[in-house]
């Protein structure tokens, strides 16, 4: 950084959100700098060394369609691939890649450089200027770094505290400092910062394990790519293993539970229900004798193995006993002990759907600092936050996403505006339009968004749309049993594979794309209906109920619903309709009341 520099977009944080934010801003022609405490830890996989999974894998494809780097990075550094839910239907397929974590970090750093993003090694201490018009960041080493827009992607670093047994220290993750001052500054500026917690399992030395007694988890399927570029596929192949905890593991937990920072009450933040600590599993499901544990390599020939499923913040001695009680791990040496992190995040009410912090004109936020969990969730939000920060600099209207068209839209809609009760993780069932939000059509779904954000969908996407159009045309013109092939493939008994052989000439197209087009057609009726329902719901969400002082006097509502409505005080008609005990006829009653008020 040369003195006097004013960046367009300044990104705080070099994690998965920060990377995508910086890249999308750079793609819009902005001058971008990214502040991270340690450049070597950019894009670090602080927890499990894998990308993708159910719903998350689809997010990665959506990110890729918008020009993000996560998919290509995951392809270049992948060491094992599995398609989760392969037997459960194409809408819920969950592509997931095991990654060489170190290589992934290096790949992302290099990619940032290639795209002209300046990396500043520093720790941010506060925002510069007025809250309504922020001028950049004040950093510990470089002092004032000025910028026209800022993206906060601080992950777990905002006032991060680490816990293990009775040990407690400040930090964003192990070996890293915490952005304590930054959290204080945000609180001083009256931002509503709440706290969540999360945790990570111990890493085990590979040679201390007896892998031969563990169940082998083979790769499932080859050549799957998240990214649209034919990047060389990974540095090599690795194997994953499966084992299980047992009664002795649970006993260790029970014996040491009073030394748990979670159960001892020292951590107040709420943790992710869907990714619980091992302590939680044992204490909440005392009858379960064993829990699955995945033993995953951290990279090609890596010295460490990741123990997926054993997230814990018990003291070191307890962790050793727990690990060594498990089959195949009897002689295990722990290289890095598990720990818990408690961190600050912005309440959803602070953000709008463009991911701007509402009380500022030019500060955006993305990732864990908004209450989400997961690399993919963070990256997706980062991409939008960075793009919108850049659009503000270019004096263009920021972009919002529809929840009917992408998981990105679903997630942002879920996170923004309302209070989260636990770290947010994406599930396929969070979408009302799941049959449409598939991995196979992510590129085509996102093309209009790419066009809105970047002005054009990009050459490869346009080509893809063109081929899809040609496939539709071919399917419409080919005849089967007196009908067009397109109509024929709507029938439930006709499989997508079959279609490939039913029309001459269809074989010349990319088979995956043909399948995708056929699926669109198969599910079309359902998709159209879902979209209408989403639209209707959105309209209901737009009807504010703040004008209603009391439900007691609305005689059209039944007694039970009145009690519920009085207690819950829903903000919108949509919320009211979702409350248990409020029946459709009661919603109608509220409508009658509103319309009556409006007409008098």
């Amino acid at each position: 950084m040369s003195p006097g520099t004013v960046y367009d977009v300044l990104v705080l944080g070099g994690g998965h959100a920060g990377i995508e934010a910086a890249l999308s801003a750079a793609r819009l022609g902005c001058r971008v700098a990214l502040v991270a405490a340690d450049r070597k830890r950019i894009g670090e996989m602080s927890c499990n060394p894998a990308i993708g999974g159910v719903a998350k894998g689809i997010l990665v494809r959506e990110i890729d369609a918008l020009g993000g780097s996560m998919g290509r990075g995951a392809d270049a550094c992948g060491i094992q691939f599995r398609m989760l839910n392969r037997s459960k239907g194409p809408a819920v397929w969950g592509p997931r890649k095991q990654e060489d974590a170190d290589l992934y970090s290096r790949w992302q750093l290099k990619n940032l450089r290639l795209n002209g993003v300046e990396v500043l090694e520093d720790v941010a201490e506060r925002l510069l200027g007025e809250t309504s018009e922020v001028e950049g960041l004040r950093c510990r080493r470089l002092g004032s770094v000025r910028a026209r827009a800022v993206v906060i992607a601080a992950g777990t670093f905002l006032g991060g505290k680490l816990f293990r047994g009775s040990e407690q220290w400040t930090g964003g993750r192990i070996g890293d400092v915490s952005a304590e001052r930054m959290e204080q500054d945000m609180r001083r500026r009256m931002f509503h910062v709440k706290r969540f917690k999360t945790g990570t399992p111990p890493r085990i030395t590979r040679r201390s394990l007896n892998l031969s007694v563990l169940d082998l988890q083979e790769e499932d399927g080859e050549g799957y790519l998240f990214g649209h570029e034919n990047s060389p596929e990974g540095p090599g192949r690795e194997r994953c293993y499966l084992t299980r905890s047992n009664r002795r593991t649970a006993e260790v937990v029970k014996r040491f539970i009073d030394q748990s920072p979670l159960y001892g009450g020292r951590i107040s933040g709420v943790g992710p229900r869907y990714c619980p600590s091992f302590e939680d599993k044992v204490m909440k499901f005392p009858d379960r004798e064993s829990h699955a544990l995945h033993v995953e390599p951290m990279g090609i020939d890596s010295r460490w193995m990741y123990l997926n499923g054993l997230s814990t913040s018990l003291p070191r001695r307890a962790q050793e006993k727990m690990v060594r009680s498990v089959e195949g791990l009897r002689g295990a040496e722990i290289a890095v002990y598990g720990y818990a992190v408690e961190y600050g995040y912005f309440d959803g009410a602070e953000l709008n759907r463009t991911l701007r912090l509402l009380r500022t004109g030019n500060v955006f936020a993305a990732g864990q600092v908004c209450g989400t969990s997961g690399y993919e969730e963070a990256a997706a939000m980062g991409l939008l936050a960075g793009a919108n920060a850049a659009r503000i600099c270019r004096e263009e209207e920021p972009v919002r996403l529809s929840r009917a068209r992408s998981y990105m839209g679903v997630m942002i809609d879920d996170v923004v505006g309302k209070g989260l009760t636990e770290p947010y993780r994406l599930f396929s069932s969070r979408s009302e339009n799941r049959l449409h939000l598939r991995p196979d059509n992510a590129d085509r779904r996102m093309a209009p968004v790419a066009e809105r954000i970047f002005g054009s969908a990009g050459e490869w996407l346009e080509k893809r749309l063109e081929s899809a159009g040609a496939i539709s045309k071919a399917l419409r013109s080919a005849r089967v049993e007196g009908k067009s092939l397109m109509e024929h493939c709507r029938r439930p008994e006709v499989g997508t594979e079959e279609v490939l052989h039913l029309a001459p000439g269809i074989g010349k197209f990319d088979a995956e794309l043909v399948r995708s087009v056929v699926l669109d057609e198969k599910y079309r009726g359902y998709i159209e209906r879902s979209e209408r329902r989403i639209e209707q719901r959105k309209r209901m969400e737009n009807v504010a109920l703040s004008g209603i002082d009391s439900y007691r006097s609305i005689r059209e509502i039944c007694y039970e619903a009145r009690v519920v409505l009085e207690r819950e005080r829903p903000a919108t008609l949509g919320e009211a309709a979702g409350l248990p005990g409020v029946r459709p006829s009661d919603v109608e009653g509220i409508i009658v009341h509103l319309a009556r008020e409006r007409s008098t």
Partner: protein
Amino acid sequence: MLSGEIIAAWATPPGVSALAVVRLSGDGCVRLAEALLGLEDGRLSGGMRRARGEVRRQNHTVDEVVAFSWPEGRSYTGEEMVEITCHGVPGRVREVLKMTFDLGARQAEPGEFTRRAFLNGRMGALDVIALSEMTRTGSTGVGESKIGELCRCLEESLARTMELLEGNVEFCEAHGLRPEEDRLRDQCSELLRRGRKLREAAYGAEKPRRVHFLGPRNAGKSTLVNALAGKELALTSPEPGTTRDGVSVVVEMDGRGLELRDSAGVSGRGLEAEAFGRALRSVEDGDLVVWMSEGPEPGPPPELQQRAGRIVRVVSKADLHRVSAGGMRVSSLTGEGMEELRRTLSEAGETPLGACSDRMVGRLETAMRILQKGDYALTAEILADVKRMLSGLMNGSVEGMGKAVERALDGLCVGK
């Protein structure tokens, strides 16, 4: 302006009335109405229009109706809308409603017209007053009845199955848990079992639809009733006028109860004439009449046409005559036309509660098939459909299913 899929409902209060209204709303409902009334394309489109027409199923007239149409932006809901004014005979109104479903409309969810109207900013002060009165009279849905209990059973089972399904999608493989395909299949079977039980009860709950067999003497009414019932109920002989008074039997067709009523033939004198008069008077609103004759003549008397819900004309003894005029050709002897007649009668026996549970069972069967094909997301989508139907059935509302169910339940004793 938001426009949704086409919804339809019986919009006027239930029961017998001079006129009744079937209301349609949503993009494309004008074209649907044109097809329903047998009008040429465009007859109802392009503005506020009115047209008379006949609603026909196969070759019999269900009802003569008048339709009013409104273009988008000028109707109660703000969407394209049609109101079909039918004769207020419940059987006919139901039939008209059912036919809109066959043409692609779906039963309106409780309160859906109102919701659409409100969201499109189309509710006026008078609408509010009218609605307020109606909502206040309240409706109880299925309540504490046996059907209500079965609905809740189905609902509970549905919730559990959906939960298990989602759990399998989101967590199983990612967390190294064993997939629970068998359990899922079992739960789906249980779900289907409960759905069928509901359907059975739904048909049982409603009084079996009455079918009167009327026509000239010696047309073969009793022979036909016997053939349909599969047993000898009435004394039959080639001699005209063997049957003197109504004999009835309850039969089941596709799970639907039908009460078949045999009667004495027309035109006779003395006792016979009196018996026919009695049979004619016993035809109530909504009842179905099978008018039998050996040829096109004689047709049903006008007073019967006024009263019956629907008249199916049957030409009997098809094995003896080669002429085909005046209705469905049936021979009890050779079985000719019997299948078609059965189908017609069983369709006529369908009631709203029955039809809705029938549709739910149909969806559940589809869900089961799709699950076996390994498409969990589609299965979930279909189960969500069933859930919506069920909630429409269970929650009362101003329009639609809620009222229809209530009506069907009038004759039900609590805790049956």
